[in-house]
């Protein structure tokens, strides 16, 4: 009886949580719609050049910031999607892939000491500490860094299915605790256990859900 009650409570809890999540998403969507309507951003001949320049500056900042560990960059992409809707989704998708591959390339080919020094020069202390923590570890150990506080079995499975683990880690809400997309890709590059081609294909699939949903399902924020 007690077990049945506990199960029904759990089920109720799950239903409640799902309802709360749906409610939060609905509220956030409504809020962003409100902001968008308030901004009333129309692309007209008299402002098209300024909009173009703003988008160019925005995507350069987006790629640069997204590639850095512990630096919030995704918000720029979300802001661009909110402002311009589905029309900007392909550009955001391509820039996200570019940022992830930039971070991976930095991790894979730049000497670890240089990366750490670079982050210290940029005052990115947490990023430098992340790289410093990864430096003495083996490739697989660096990969397991991305699965902080997970069981040995989980780490073992993640090492075996490392590309799936990478895709999940990049998309995991709250991954900013372990460095965000940029940090994950730098450590993945440093680990040496990911090949560039397979990583590229993984990233292309991993970062596609939001832009593709915006584009093909006509979702707007």
């Amino acid at each position, binding site marked *: 009886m007690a077990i049945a009650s506990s199960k029904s409570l759990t089920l109720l809890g799950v239903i409640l949580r799902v309802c709360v999540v749906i409610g939060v998403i609905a509220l956030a969507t409504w809020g962003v719609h409100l902001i968008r309507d308030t901004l009333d951003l*129309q*692309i*007209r*001949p*008299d402002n*098209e*050049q300024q909009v*173009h320049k703003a*988008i160019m500056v925005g995507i350069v900042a987006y790629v640069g910031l997204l590639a850095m560990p512990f630096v919030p960059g995704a918000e720029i992409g979300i802001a661009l999607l909110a402002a311009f809707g589905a*029309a*900007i*989704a*392909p*550009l955001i*998708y*391509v820039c996200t*892939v*570019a940022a992830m*591959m930039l971070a*991976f*390339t930095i991790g894979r*080919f730049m000497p670890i000491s240089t990366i750490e020094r670079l982050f210290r020069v940029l005052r990115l202390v947490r990023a430098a500490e992340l790289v410093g923590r990864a430096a003495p570890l083996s490739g697989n150990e660096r990969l397991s860094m991305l699965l902080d506080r997970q069981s040995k079995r989980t780490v073992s499975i993640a090492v075996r299915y490392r590309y799936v683990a990478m895709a999940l880690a990049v998309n995991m809400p709250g991954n900013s605790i372990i460095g965000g997309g940029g940090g994950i890709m730098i450590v993945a590059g440093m680990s040496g256990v990911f090949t*560039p*081609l397979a990583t*590229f294909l993984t990233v*292309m699939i991993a970062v596609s859900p939001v832009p593709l949903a915006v*584009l093909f399902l006509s979702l707007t924020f």
Partner: protein
Amino acid sequence: MTQILQVAAIAAATLGTGAATLSVMNEDVPDFAVPEGDWATTGALDGRTFQIYGEDPGSGAVLEDDIVFRNGTFQSTDCENYCNFGWSDYQTKTIDGVIHFTSTAICPDAPHTVVWYGRVTGDEVVIDGTWTTRRWYWTNQIEVHATGSVAPSVDVAG
């Protein structure tokens, strides 16, 4: 050297795939479809200027413009405020006493293409058209619907 080649390969793959993705995912928006017919360079509207008023149905923005015809060419004074389109050739055809004209203006400094299609009946004109901007990452189009009437000639540069 191998590392440099690998970095170059990653960069090339990322940029190449990105460009391909953008070209596939970005749907082109065609310019205004001008009806086919026996269009000819006649200069039938040379020396005339029309004051037109209209709006962009997408944004509700108001259009106030003078369109000028001279020496077989056409110019919108309002469009000149945003880009130095200059004078563009125009063509005409006459159906039941209505002079139909079309002109395509291309901005030399930015990827703007403006297609005009108008019908002139006596001193009145009805205009349809599109202002299309094709950036490498998207295509934006503004529709134009306007009506107007003959105005005194205005001074335009060029």
